[in-house]
């Protein structure tokens, strides 16, 4: 990270190579479309590059990157919601696939729980890391995940998906 802060472009390339795929995975599951996810990851990485000087070494790099990425994605979700009063589908949704039911069900889960679910299941982050990323206690992480999952379960059972 020190090299990135000094403007070392090769180091930044390495960083993107190492974490880019996972960031994209999280963003795509949160935003529902590849195009929107790429846009979000690009914005997040730009913030990382410009703000590398504020990075502090007691953070794991991935935790720091996820914090920035979820900040960008959550704001994108706010914009979508405020446009329509309700949560609206992404501007350029991915074609419906086998996961359509799950995607629909996830849309019903409150934003914070959804963010935690995505981070937990894309990268298998620990409760401690999740707590750090969203600035909450481990107990809140657990209760949010539990709540998210039971909402999902309700939505999927009702929809007859599983």
């Amino acid at each position, binding site marked *: 990270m020190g090299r990135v802060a000094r403007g070392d472009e090769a180091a930044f390339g390495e960083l*993107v190579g190492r974490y880019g795929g996972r960031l994209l995975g999280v963003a795509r599951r949160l935003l529902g479309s590849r195009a929107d996810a790429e846009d979000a990851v690009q914005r997040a990485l730009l913030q990382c590059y410009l703000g590398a000087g504020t990075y502090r070494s007691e953070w794991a790099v991935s935790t720091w990157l996820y914090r920035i990425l979820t900040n960008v994605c*959550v704001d994108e979700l*706010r914009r979508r919601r405020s446009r329509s009063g309700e949560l609206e589908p992404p501007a350029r949704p991915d074609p419906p696939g086998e996961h359509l039911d799950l995607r629909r069900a996830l849309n019903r889960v409150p*934003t914070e729980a959804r963010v935690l679910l995505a981070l937990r299941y894309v990268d298998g982050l620990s409760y401690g890391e999740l707590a750090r990323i969203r600035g909450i206690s481990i107990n809140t992480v657990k209760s949010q995940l539990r709540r998210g*999952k039971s909402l999902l379960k309700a939505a999927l059972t009702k929809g007859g998906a599983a």
Partner: protein
Amino acid sequence: MKMDRIDDILKRYFQPDAEPGDLAKQVLMAARASARETGRFLDGISIQATSEGVSLIRAGRLPKPATAAARRVAQRAREELAEYFQGERAFFSVPVDLSGEPDFQKKVLAAARRIPFGEVRPYAWVAQRIGHPRAVRAVGTALGRNPVPFIVPCHRVLQTGGGLGGYLFGTDVKRRLLSLERTTPVYEGCTSTHIVCRVGCIHGRHMRPDNRVVFASVEDARSIGYRPCKVCKPQAA
């Protein structure tokens, strides 16, 4: 359905994507472009105020505000605008003084002010909102004469088909403002105090960058134990 089954479904759904291609290169290009663009826009702008609020913002030179109170208002507006242009402010708290404007103009400006940060509305929406649905052109003219651009966000009004329409400082500036607002968040929380503010609040300025989390709504923030700030009152936004 069992919880284990939900676990399985989630695991499969959230499998990581393939590596992104030339993401790093694209980001570096964007970084260079943003360094070039970082605006000296504010330098060319003059602000006129009364003791009641900002009364005129224009490119070029304007006479200095007459009283000390008015000068303080103008200075505050300049600071808020600087933060806004840097993507560090999502609302203006400095008052405006539109007392010299005709009634129709006042109504149009009041309607434009209600368009939330980062969003856009068509000219026809404004016309509808002020109870003159057919006066779309008059609305356009009134917005074109907006005495306090940026603070009254006439740049958030577009043509119905999505065309940019006109702008006091040119459509290029309008486009840049819209893209600036697209990348500026509205609600931010501090992980050490667990308070959620509107971006630009005085509290937020004292926050360390690594204590900052963005929220989609005040309810979301509340759901994980953050409370709204008493200074900027984000729940009222």
